[in-house]
């Protein structure tokens, strides 16, 4: 009897923490093949790589929590970074240029939010179109070339070091902590979950549904802009295909992290785990020396495995509660 229940407890625990267990397994396996994986250099490199993906993953999660989807996070990041860099090259001081990037991101989010709420347009198509417009504009304005030679002060956070450690992961930690607080302890955060879980009931319960939705889109855009700045600083340039490697990973990180695509369910710790898992897979495959032509395939298969485990976890949860 006790054996059964403790076995069940272990199963419960593993199911609830499947992503973290996968993350540890992934790191362990990588380390087994390449002991150098455990070096400070590589581990800190993973955190650096995870920062941009992490910000984009929260950005998309803000909208997925509503039960909508935002496919324009990467486009927003690229276009916002471009406007800031152009303004900077035109003589705007660096701090103001960074502000321009963040404001541009928020404005794009605002446009998305207004179209989806006030015009009741479908979020998937709206943000898909927005993403194409933004990436198209980026390509048109840069003419296929890159804007580089960015000043060091612009790149400070992305490439700088504090006491020998890269500064970038600090942003990751601060932002995740901040959003953990927002999601769990603020009126906006709880309203966000309520609207995602049952929008009609949220309205009847006295929540300003449209305002919460627009707020979520604006913050989604703001975070995308922030990610754009950090990525531009990290690469030292705004390229015409800016950020496209993140495109699919962003959704995967959020969903693997347990943010429900039907809305109303998710945790910031889960998003962090999803982000780290995908980054470890990505970096690990490169370090293992997998041929460049196979990396997308291998990465895709591993994400698939993670998604299947997530699906099993949901099935298991549904069976337990019924």
């Amino acid at each position, binding site marked *: 009897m006790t054996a059964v229940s403790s076995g069940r407890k272990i199963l419960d625990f593993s199911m609830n923490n499947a992503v973290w267990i996968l993350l540890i397994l992934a790191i362990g396996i990588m380390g087994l093949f390449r002991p150098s994986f455990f070096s400070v250099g590589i581990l800190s490199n993973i955190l650096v790589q995870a920062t941009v993906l992490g910000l984009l993953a929260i950005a998309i999660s803000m909208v997925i929590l509503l039960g909508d989807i935002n496919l324009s996070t990467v486009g927003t990041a690229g276009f916002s970074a471009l406007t800031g860099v152009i303004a900077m090259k035109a003589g705007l001081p660096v701090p103001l240029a960074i502000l321009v990037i963040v404001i541009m991101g928020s404005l794009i989010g605002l446009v998305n939010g207004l179209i989806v709420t006030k015009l009741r347009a479908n979020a998937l198509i709206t943000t898909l179109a927005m993403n194409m417009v933004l990436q198209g504009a980026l390509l048109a304005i840069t003419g296929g070339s890159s804007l580089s030679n960015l000043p060091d002060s612009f790149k400070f956070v992305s490439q700088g070091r504090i006491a020998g450690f890269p500064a970038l992961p600090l942003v990751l930690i601060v932002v995740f902590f901040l959003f953990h607080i927002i999601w769990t*302890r603020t009126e906006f955060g709880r309203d966000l979950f309520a609207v995602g879980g049952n929008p009609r009931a949220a309205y009847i*319960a006295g929540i300003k549904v449209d305002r919460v939705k627009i707020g979520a889109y604006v913050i989604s855009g703001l975070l995308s802009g922030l990610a754009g700045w950090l990525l531009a600083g990290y690469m030292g340039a705004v390229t015409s295909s800016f950020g496209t490697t993140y495109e699919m990973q962003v959704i995967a990180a959020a969903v693997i992290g347990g943010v429900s695509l039907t809305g109303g369910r998710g945790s910031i710790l889960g998003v962090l785990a999803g982000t780290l898992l995908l980054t470890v897979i990505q970096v690990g495959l490169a370090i293992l020396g997998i041929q460049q032509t196979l990396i997308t395939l291998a990465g895709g298969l591993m994400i698939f495995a993670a998604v299947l485990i997530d699906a099993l976890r949901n099935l298991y949860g549904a069976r337990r509660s019924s």
Partner: protein
Amino acid sequence: MSQPLLRVTNVSKIFGATRALSGANLDIAAGEIHSLLGRNGAGKSTLVNIIAGVYPQTEGDVVFDGHDLRKLDIFARQKLGIRLVPQHENSFPDLTVAENIFAGDLPKKNGLVDWSTINEVAAQELAAYGVDADPRGMVRDLSSIDARKLNIIRSMHSGARLIILDEPTTALTTREREELFAFVRDLKAMGTAFIFISHYLGEVLDLSDSISVLRDGLMYPVEDRASATQEHLGELVAGGQVELTRRRAERPDPSDVLVQIRGLRSAGVEDVDLGIRRGEVLGIIGFPGSGAREFCRALFGADRVTSGTVHLEGRLVRLSSPRQALREGIAYISFDRHREGIMPLMDVNENIGISSHAGALRRAWGFLDLKRQRQRSQQYRDELKIKCNTIFDPMDSLSGGNQQKVLVSRLLSTQPSLLILDEPTVGIDILSREEIISKVLELTRTGMSALYLTNDYEELLRVADRLVFFDEGRVASVVDNDDLTIEQLTQIRDSNKEAASA
């Protein structure tokens, strides 16, 4: 004695550590209507699910028409003629009436669907059962009563001999309920047997040949069917005396008007003038489409108010949205608990607190006072006797009655001056119902007023001080509830209707 159609002998069901059903016995003859009464979780669903083959019994035998059902799955039992018609309509709203009747077994000609046969046969069956519906029409467009009848016709089409109706009268008007009962009686006369599950004691007495009460997994057959009364059944269901809550004898002061409504118009509401007295329970009566529900929703800002004014305590209220109404002191509990009530993914604590985010729980910088939220939830849990392990239980783990108590807590915690209750006791057990009603009556004693809209007139006459009858979007009459009977009430309601159409 001849063999009964269904014989359940000593059936038990154990889920994990819970004994959901113990030693149940039940005999049903062809053409018999047998009612099952009991609170949520008493074992009614377990018993009918075992009979229908949703899951197997732990021990005991179920025999239907001489067949031992033990080895037969749900589909084999359907072939034998056992049909479960669930509480929520399980038709396909975007298919035609005829398609719904034939669903799963469309006749074909040369491999293609044979539409002419389908529509022809469906029309015959609809006519045979006295349902006036176009077989080519969409089920979406049917009235709720016809949709329910259609569910039963579907069962009959596939040769049902025992039909299990799980709370079929939920959200039906009295007239529709009568219509459904007449329909069931017709089928009974043709030899179909029914198991009827309901919370309403009155309709159970009205309809059934025999009655069993389930309580804590044990079955109590009502021996003396002929002399059974509502009080007697209520006691059996609750396992003791249920105190039926009644309004107090003294009346609210007619001159002390809390809410004054003038010329209110909104979709389905035409020019309503009405005063609501402080501390009164004002019963709202009207057929669907009469404007009764529309009036309640407009007063909460859930439907758009096109013109008219509402003064509360002499102050003009803005009714732009539910949020604004709550701020003004007007709260509303929707008839649709699932769509407009509960937050299924959140816990009990958050479900209670959600309407106070912008009010009592607000702190600086957009933070919520989570400690206060927990304290208040705990307090309401105790006051309304909400059954959950902790206030952090997920909302969807609660029974309907307890979910409704959570919603009542949510709105009472906003400290409303006017509480609008739209079918607050639909589909919930008797004990929860009385606890909710007595809480509402208690608060009216401290000056809160309540609008009470329900089709359960027995309940309405117990709680209301006055009754407002709606017809064609207007107030047809306002009557003091001086120990009115249900007959008097329906008479007033129907004479209003006739006067309007004359």
